[in-house]
């Protein structure tokens, strides 16, 4: 596959689940969107299927949010193109868990 090299950061508990460390670099089919990034992420790390978005509806899980380039992208369409800096691998897509709980 040829595509864009994209940086993604996932929460600590998902890194331990997927047995990875630090930011991830993924080859993502263009156009680079939240949906295509998650497709690539779940393809490479199948254990993450269902942990960020629902298996069936593909809806974002309620306590997770997507940020990039200092913007909250959580409520934009998952098929909307992401900022060019993300598509070019200069800025990461940040997948962040809500800070709550004990």
């Amino acid at each position, binding site marked *: 596959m040829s595509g864009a090299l994209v940086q993604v950061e996932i929460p600590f508990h*998902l890194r*331990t689940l997927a047995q990875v460390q630090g930011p991830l670099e993924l080859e993502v089919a263009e156009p680079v969107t939240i949906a295509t990034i998650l497709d690539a992420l779940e393809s490479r790390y*199948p*254990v993450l299927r269902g942990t960020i978005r629902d298996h069936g509806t593909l809806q974002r*899980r309620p306590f997770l949010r997507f940020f990039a380039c200092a913007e909250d992208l959580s409520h934009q369409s998952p098929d909307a193109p992401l900022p060019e800096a993300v598509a070019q691998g200069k800025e990461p897509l940040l997948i962040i868990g809500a800070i709550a709980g004990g």
Partner: protein
Amino acid sequence: MTKIRVLAGTRKGAFILTSDGKRDAWEVAGPFFAGWEIYHMKGSPVNPNRIYVSQTSGWFGQIIQRSDDGGKTWTTPGGGPQKSPQGFPAGESNRFVYDTSEQTGAPLTTHQWYDGTQHPWEFKRVWHLEPSLTDAEAVYAGVEDAALFRSADGGHSWQELSGLRGHGTGPHWQPGAGGMCLHTIVLDPADPERIYIAISAAGAFRSDDGGKSWKPINKGLRSQFLPDQDSEIGHCVHHIAMSPRRPGVLFMQKHWDVMRSDDAGDSWREVSGNLPTDFGFAIDVHAHEPETIYVAPIKSDSEHFPLDGKLQVWRSKTGGQEWEPLTRGLPQKDCYVNVLRDAMAIDTLDDCGIYFGTTGGQVYCSPDGGDHWKPIVRDLPAVLSVEVQTLS
């Protein structure tokens, strides 16, 4: 040589506690899956080194973990290839999908919400895993929102036994304070087709055909919060225990009341007797004496801690009604922990061991049927579940 393995699921990870048959010196392994809620872990009676774990998170959903070597290593057995092409662990263990197919499913109706309105059925987590008594590959999962799933392939895939959720009373089921969870699964060793389950707050149900069809078994239960005291469903059953030596005799810790059935749940009678409070969550039966039962009384439904700050297990050797407090080695002042419904277990050594965990992070063991207690560990995260395996 006999070995005891205690499986403790906690609010922040899983722990495995091991000892020899004396149950005096313990080794503690863990935390496994650190930071995740471990609602339940249980080993297969067929292959004790196969252990199933419910790993769950309000953020990231449900994961099933499995060990085939007694907890040394773990895999996520669900869905797809066992290893991804890049060599990372595969998964999709968290794929619990209610069966709405025309052939085998039931319509995904609504259930009653806290405010009395109807609410859609939504999968949240696995509360209890019950491995088959005869097949190490088969395991049942009780989930929230209440439904029963079964895997026939070691947790690789899960199918709902939708006859339960599809029972005609489903729209009247309602969540208890902890959610609308199916938390108890009891398999009958004498009849592989017979399964008992319990749901908060729908009540107890029994299947006599391997889970295809279900009937409520709540006759004799009375719940003050219900408009109809003798309602067929709606009772907040906290836990059910059965001695494998005497299938058909069931003991129940209800929201309030300790109950007993001698006819496989067809009818119940109260056996709270002289208990100082009959509210509680945990209940279990001695491994060799089917009339000896244990409860951990909790003050009330509003105050989930022991009466007067004294942590006590109460034992009846008469199948209920007549109870005695067991206190030696347990804190008898300033103790305000809870003992949750899946946090009591019994080993099968001749001198039967009793175990329970608390929300204060202690796991206690009595190696002599409850007469004397010692903490195995004192400072774990809040204990959600305790199971024990007697290994030879």
